[in-house]
């Protein structure tokens, strides 16, 4: 199995990245403040507007290191992609399926099954671990209804219907989400999802986690030769990594939501880590973003057993493995796309 390498997060907004030999050199106002060898890096995330030299971009593209530019607040700007692998055949299959709503639906269905299944088990785990703190009967009831939805989704062959079921399941899950926040309740609450801008601490963190995850997934998809911008469930829209969003569906809850909840419940973050702007937008402070990224990196190292492969892998490789499995399905090796079904 592929090895998980390190990610480099460059959080100061006013630094410039360049290449020196086989190293990334980080410069601030012409002064060198850091130097990192490229060879054990998998991804570089920069937060800010300064940029990187074309020679560094070239080196990253060549070595399959994903180089991602985000705004200071973690909004996605651009990603450097190298020459794609010689997988024209695979991409053509992907485009052909994407053009066909019915074929798309059979793959999209499994993303949704994965998503609802995982969210169901998030609730089940919560009832097991915190039975005295949460409304167990409500959780059990929601879990049961999610199970029923999964069964119904199993026979759906229509994208709009699928989206309908997905929306329904999301409403049920979001209704109980707030109860899983067990600490610092006055500062951290979930009344519903909002973004652009996020209006509370929890949404600010969710947005940030989703951005990171979306990039990891997009990079993994491109890495196996798929086009991250052509999706099955999410239709093409300029500049939108639709396939990355598709694959991400099943990982949102189990990867990003749980991560955010645990930062709150373990009190890794607190209210001082957030600033509310005049327009109501809530942003994370530089300090809290650093804590967040550190924890994100640690989470990637944690091991789990992949439910379909049965192999132990780290969380950080899950996007890569799912991308590979999707490619193998498109190639005809697998009868269906196996979603990541977590429990």
């Amino acid at each position, binding site marked *: *199995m*592929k090895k998980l390498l390190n990610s480099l997060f460059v959080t100061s907004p006013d630094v410039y990245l360049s290449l020196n030999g086989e190293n990334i050199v980080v410069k601030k106002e012409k002064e060198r403040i850091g130097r990192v060898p490229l060879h054990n890096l998998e991804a570089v995330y920069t937060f800010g507007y300064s940029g990187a030299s074309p020679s560094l971009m070239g080196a990253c593209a060549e070595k399959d290191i994903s180089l991602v530019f985000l705004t200071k607040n973690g909004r996605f700007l651009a990603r450097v992609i190298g020459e794609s*692998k*010689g*997988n024209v*055949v*695979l991409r053509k299959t992907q485009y052909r399926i994407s053009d066909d709503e019915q074929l798309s639906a059979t793959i999209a269905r*499994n993303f949704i*099954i994965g998503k609802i*299944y995982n969210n169901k088990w998030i609730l089940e785990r919560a009832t097991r671990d915190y039975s005295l703190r949460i409304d167990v009967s409500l959780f059990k009831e929601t879990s049961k209804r999610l*199970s029923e939805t*999964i*069964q119904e989704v*199993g026979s759906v062959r229509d994208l709009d219907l699928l989206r309908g079921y997905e929306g329904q399941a999301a409403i049920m899950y979001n209704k109980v989400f707030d109860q899983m926040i067990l600490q610092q309740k006055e500062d951290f609450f979930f009344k519903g999802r909002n973004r652009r801008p996020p209006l509370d601490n929890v949404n600010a963190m969710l947005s940030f986690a989703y951005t990171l995850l979306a990039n990891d997934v997009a990079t993994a998809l491109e890495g*196996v*030769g798929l086009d991250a911008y052509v999706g099955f469930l999410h239709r093409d829209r300029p500049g939108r990594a639709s396939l990355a969003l598709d694959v991400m569906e099943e990982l949102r809850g189990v990867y990003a939501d749980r991560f955010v909840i645990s930062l709150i419940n373990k009190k890794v973050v607190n209210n001082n880590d957030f600033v509310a702007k005049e327009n109501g937008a809530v942003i994370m402070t530089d300090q809290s973003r650093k804590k967040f990224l550190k924890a994100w990196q640690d989470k990637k190292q944690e091991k789990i057993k992949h*439910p*379909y*492969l*049965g*192999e132990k892998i780290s969380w950080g490789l899950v996007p890569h493995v799912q991308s*590979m*499995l999707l490619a*193998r*399905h498109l*190639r*005809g*090796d*697998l*009868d*269906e*796309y*196996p*979603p990541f*079904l977590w*429990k």
Partner: protein
Amino acid sequence: MDSNEEADLLLSGIQHFQFCKRQWALIHVEQQWEENVRTVEGQHIHKKADQPFIKEKRKNKLIVRALPVQSDELGATGICDVVEFIEDKDGVPIQNSKESYVPVPVEYKRGKPKKDNSDILQLTAQAMCLEEMLLCEVSVGYIFYNELKHRVEIPITHLNKVKVRQMFREMHSYFDDRHTPKVKTGPHCKSCSLQNVCLPELMKKQSVSKYIERKINE
């Protein structure tokens, strides 16, 4: 056989195909290789081409290195490491030369003779290309094994030619369908450089629909 150049397969693919059909398809159909094989071969030709086309004359021999060869019948192209043209009155005339010759392909291998006969089949395929290009008969070739430090004589047999034809027919059918076959995995997978993209484990796995069904009914 399609003589369109794009459909030509590489002679060197015989090695991969013999080792594992899936490995061959991953490399030649899916091009899942750090470096696409064609570019590797391209560099190979290039390196040799940079030197003046080496043609030595030794007594009754003309030695040509890195000779590109091709066969319409097989739908294949490749490069012979060395072809020795031996003067022979029963041979065929070649360009810029008064004598007639029989070509003898010589292939260089790093290791020692393999258990499978992929080296022999590759040599046979080269011989078939030469026969087709020069309209002659090639009855013998050599493989030089670096570890043995000497060459082994290989008769070009009818039986091996039949095998080569069958092999290319099969490779073409996979290639035309852009199909990567599933195969029986085994100990050879351990030494396969493409394990990560092949995921040999997948071939032993239950169907995905059963996996999903089992999981959601647990």
